[in-house]
């Protein structure tokens, strides 16, 4: 038989959800296997008797499937291949499909023969925190160790290309969001939905039912799954209810905001549409019916393949018709696990015994087990597990809750079902600050209190009986709908259930290992954290839960310690001799289960990752072969290389043309704000550090804005178009921030001022013409404008017609040449540009990019805010102290007289000229007084540095301590990182290298 562990049809319970009529072929670790629709990868592997599915993280021990849901710590597989591969998926969460390919994640060369397993035998060398202790010396060697450790410890492989899938996002509001479609969640959704509330019900599984899918129990006299099917059908028929299957709520955030991942095609990659969908739900009320997660007991070699959670065993038997073994032993501290023994027996599996750590269990389930002829060993514990790659027997001894005594007795088995009780799944509850309390009877943390609109019901609230779950869910669903404002009367949710009462479990976490044993007892299987590791952490002083977690990595694996965490805390508490709750708990944070980046990105990838802003002239730049650079979101031409030209050649040519003939720059990206209103002048007077109110209509002025701390935040040109109307420019990358800055002061500090601010950046396309022939060119295209220096002087603005287009012409310059910035409505930008290019041809017009612009302005010593300045530069530091008004208050003025801003010894803007004309200092290089071995006193740094084609040597701007006083001195540009270190002498100069009198600009 191809699936030797599949239950025969006559032994298959009614609850089974596999389709035996169809067979699916899949590949695991290169071998072909068969399963059925309805299987998970885990259940299909178990059906085929594949015991070892993974190697453990640290010791590379063989590991088998341990759980049946998203809590699985062992069976992490690499799913698919190539660019579509997904690492670290729990096999228990992978629905089987035809042609599925998966492999074990953490082994080499194969899962059955893994060379890394030497780590298990070398484990005395790898205690908790070993990397903190072992690899700290010699200094620098860590890099080598890190490389080796990462190779040894890696889990999974990243895809080898861009993700070929698409992902979607959906946004929804609802009255009640119910998370978990088990009995409590279904009851909550029904109760809320019947009131007419907008309900969303989400569950990880492909079908609703939760634990009802896994158990042999009855509701209203029929198998419980029938009840869940009926409930789901009613919910589907409600017009305002959305049922989401295969959907995991991974995080709850403030104000009812919940993130959920719907896996749309993972169960059948052939389906059309996006692979996953991120639901961003804003819920007025949230009901958490997230169930509970079974926890293991900790004992010697409890990690062997074949050891499995008792509840998971029931899932495999009842839901997937798989017997995870031929001969079973159940080992537990509670009544619930006896159901596993009974269900296994009913499925025809030989149950050797139930080992119970309690004395004389007399609850209903133990009584039924005894009546069924299953031997029960009470006051006993498993003290050893035989078999390395599969359990083939166990040793048990008498156990009084603390110590083991007596002779050990051997029992044969190939399946060891383990239960240490159940932990309510309170993860999501904790995401929104929900506080927990420790319940000694359940030995578990339960939801206590929260200010968030969240209710926790059913097993997640520690209510484990089915009748309680349904009653609890129904009550919470109704009150949630009411609290969301929906008050319609509705038919109550009811169900007839005969529950079996359970006796308390024993608060036992660990069966001690005798000293000297080489066995390990694992607490966190995913991270290979043992009970001994936790005791070591306690001995070394890591007492608090959060500290011990970080030291031992308890709960830090892909499963986030869903099964082992509370047992770990219990062992840690015992090692410290304190009661468990006093240690605190570790913090649960989103995501509950791993979320692929693709789902978070959705469609916002590639071209949609960030918006691209293009100027109206962009097409011309493209056609002309411009090399672009990103400035904020803008694409700006950096330079326009001609055939055979490198960047340096092109920039040099563009710079020369602007100084000798005429250059043309696309300046459309400059931020532009129009300030309008009777108080506009007074408002701007408070904003800028220089005077604005006395600016005459038709004139422009260079303006500096300071923060209240006195530091320069932006610069630009202020043009007064009318008494009550100003046109301001900001640096390209700062436009939005400055708009917010102005609105902030206008709205919050001076709301009585009558000023309107309008962002007009995109409204105007701007062509900046400069050079000795600029006037001649503009005169040709604007015959009606009087361009004579007397009629249209530097720093003035005129409105007129240029190239037949109504334009604002600003006579300003960022190059030191006669310059005109011609602004036209954006839709005419390209027309203006092409007209200028055509008309400029006979004047030798050359378009230049941002790099030439930078060189030209640096030759003049003009600063760029954000390049010369770094948030610690005052106007005086930049040599612009004369701009600062003395006749008014303005933002930042008071700070300019604070002791430190007024002190000497601040860094000041200077120029640098190296003796070697070919040397171009690296930007950011430190300046020192003379060459020396580090550490050296740093006097300043280079802020801008270029090769100047016009001057024939390298030029640099720098911020230098007491810079203006040092003009004429020599400093050294330090490059100690080079081998040998280089120290290049440079003469400190005034920042302006070219036409210091400014004749050309005024001409």
């Amino acid at each position, binding site marked *: 038989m191809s699936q030797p562990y599949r239950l025969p049809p006559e032994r298959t319970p009614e609850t089974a959800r596999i389709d035996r009529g169809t067979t699916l072929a899949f590949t695991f670790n290169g071998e072909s296997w068969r399963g059925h629709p309805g299987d998970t990868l885990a259940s299909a592997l178990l059906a085929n008797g594949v015991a070892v599915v993974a190697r453990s993280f640290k010791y590379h021990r063989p590991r088998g499937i341990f759980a049946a849901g998203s809590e699985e710590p062992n069976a992490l597989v690499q799913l698919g291949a190539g660019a579509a591969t997904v690492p670290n998926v729990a096999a228990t969460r992978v629905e089987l499909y035809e042609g599925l390919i998966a492999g074990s994640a953490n082994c080499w060369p194969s899962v059955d023969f893994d060379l890394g397993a030497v780590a298990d035998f070398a484990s005395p060398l790898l205690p908790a925190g070993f990397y903190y202790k072992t690899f700290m010396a010699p200094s620098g060697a860590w890099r080598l160790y890190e490389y080796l450790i990462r190779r040894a410890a890696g889990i999974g492989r990243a895809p080898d290309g861009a993700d070929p899938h698409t992902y979607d996002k959906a946004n929804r509001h609802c009255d009640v969001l119910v998370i978990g479609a088990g009995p409590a969640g279904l009851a909550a959704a029904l109760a809320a939905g019947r009131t007419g509330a907008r309900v969303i019900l989400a569950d990880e599984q492909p079908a609703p039912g939760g634990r009802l899918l896994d158990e042999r129990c009855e509701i209203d006299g029929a198998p419980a799954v029938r009840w869940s099917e009926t409930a789901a059908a009613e919910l589907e028929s409600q017009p305002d209810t959305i049922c989401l299957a295969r959907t995991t709520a991974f995080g709850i955030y403030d*104000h009812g*905001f919940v993130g959920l991942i719907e896996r749309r095609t993972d169960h059948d990659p052939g389906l059309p549409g996006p692979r996953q969908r991120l639901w961003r739900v804003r819920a007025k009320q949230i009901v958490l019916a997230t169930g509970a997660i079974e926890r293991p007991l900790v004992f010697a070699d409890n990690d062997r393949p074949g050891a499995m959670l008792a509840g998971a065993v029931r899932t495999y038997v009842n839901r997937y018709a798989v017997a995870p073994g031929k001969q079973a032993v159940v080992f537990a501290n509670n009544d619930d696990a006896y159901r596993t023994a009974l269900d296994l027996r009913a499925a025809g599996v030989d149950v050797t015994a139930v080992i119970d750590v309690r004395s004389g269990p007399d609850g209903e389930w133990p009584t039924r087990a005894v009546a069924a002829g299953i031997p029960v060993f009470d006051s006993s514990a498993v003290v050893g597990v035989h078999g390395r790659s599969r359990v083939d027997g166990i040793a048990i001894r008498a156990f009084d809750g603390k110590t083991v005594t007596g002779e050990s007795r051997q029992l044969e088995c190939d399946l060891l079902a383990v239960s240490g009780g159940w932990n309510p799944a309170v993860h999501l509850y904790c995401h929104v600050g929900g506080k927990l309390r420790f319940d000694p009877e359940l030995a578990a943390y339960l939801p206590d209190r929260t*200010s968030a609109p969240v209710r926790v019901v059913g097993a997640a609230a520690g209510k484990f009986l089915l009748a309680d779950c349904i009653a609890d869910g129904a009550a919470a669903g109704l009150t949630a709908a009411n609290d969301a404002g929906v008050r319609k009367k509705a038919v109550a949710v009811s169900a007839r259930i005969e529950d079996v009462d359970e006796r308390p479990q024993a608060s036992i976490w660990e069966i001690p290992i005798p000293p000297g044993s080489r066995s390990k007892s694992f607490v966190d299987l995913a991270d290979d954290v043992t009970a001994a590791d936790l005791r070591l952490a306690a001995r070394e002083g890591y007492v608090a839960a959060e500290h011990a977690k970080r030291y031992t990595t308890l709960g830090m694996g892909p499963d986030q310690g869903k099964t082992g965490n509370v047992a770990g805390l219990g062992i840690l508490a015992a090692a410290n001799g304190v009661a468990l709750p006093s240690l605190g708990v570790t913090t649960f944070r989103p995501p509950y289960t791993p979320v692929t980046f693709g789902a978070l990105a959705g469609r916002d990838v590639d071209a949609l990752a960030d918006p691209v802003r293009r100027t109206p002239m962009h097409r011309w730049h493209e056609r002309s072969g411009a090399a672009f650079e990103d400035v904020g979101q803008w694409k700006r031409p950096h330079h326009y290389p001609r055939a055979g030209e490198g960047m340096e050649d092109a920039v040099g040519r563009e710079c020369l043309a602007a100084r000798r003939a005429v250059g043309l720059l696309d300046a459309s990206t400059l931020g532009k704000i129009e300030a309008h209103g009777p108080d506009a002048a007074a408002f701007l007077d408070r904003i800028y550090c220089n005077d604005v109110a006395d600016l005459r209509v038709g004139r422009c002025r260079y303006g500096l804005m300071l923060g209240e701390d006195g530091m320069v935040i932006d610069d630009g040109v202020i043009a007064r178009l009318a008494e009550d109307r100003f046109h301001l420019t900001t640096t390209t990358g700062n436009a939005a921030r400055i708009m*917010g800055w102005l609105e*902030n002061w206008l709205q*919050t500090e001076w709301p009585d001022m009558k000023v309107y601010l309008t962002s007009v950046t995109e409204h105007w396309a701007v062509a900046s013409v400069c050079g000795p022939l600029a006037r001649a060119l503009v005169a040709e295209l604007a015959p009606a404008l009087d361009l004579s220096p007397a009629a249209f002087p530097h720093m003035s603005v005129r409105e007129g017609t240029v190239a037949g287009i109504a334009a604002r012409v600003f006579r300003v310059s960022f190059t030191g040449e006669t310059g005109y910035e011609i602004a036209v409505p954006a839709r005419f930008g390209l027309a203006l540009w092409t007209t200028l290019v055509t008309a400029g041809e006979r004047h030798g017009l050359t378009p230049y990019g941002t790099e030439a612009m930078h060189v030209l302005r640096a030759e003049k010593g003009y600063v760029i805010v954000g390049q010369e300045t770094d948030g610690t530069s005052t106007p005086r530091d930049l040599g612009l102290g004369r701009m600062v008004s003395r006749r008014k208050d303005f933002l930042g003025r008071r700070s300019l007289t*604070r002791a430190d801003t007024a002190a000497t010894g601040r860094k000041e803007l200077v120029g640098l000229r190296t003796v070697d004309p070919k040397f171009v200092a690296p930007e950011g290089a430190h300046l020192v007084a003379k060459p020396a071995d580090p550490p050296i006193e740093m006097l300043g740094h280079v802020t801008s540095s270029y090769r100047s084609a016009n001057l024939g040597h390298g030029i640099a701007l720098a911020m230098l301590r007491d810079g203006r006083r040092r003009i004429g001195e020599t400093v050294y540009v330090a490059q100690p990182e080079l081998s040998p270190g280089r120290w290049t002498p440079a003469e400190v100069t005034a920042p302006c290298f070219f036409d210091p009198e400014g004749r050309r600009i005024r001409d």
Partner: protein
Amino acid sequence: MLLIPCPWCGLRDESEFACGGEAHIARPKDPDALSDAAWADYLFMRANPKGWHRERWHHVHGCRRWFNVARHTVTHAILESYKVGEAPPDPDAPTAPAKRKRSARVKDSG
């Protein structure tokens, strides 16, 4: 993600807003009258309470208006948003906020 009541636009997602820090810090009328220490206090020192906090928010990707919000720094509950120039609500006087009809209100979601 917070749900912030803009006094002009109603409840909107936090991603549309920028937080402007503590509210009700008036710019000194005569900065020259202040000592360096007093000016530094205005510049740099901000309250960091555990509890109700009045802070400025800017609906930067919406109506572009600045306004104030009373938010609880532990629960993130928002008591009320109110326009610039309006008096802040007193969380201990539950009837007080209702008097301001024009402001958007949200219930403490707890």
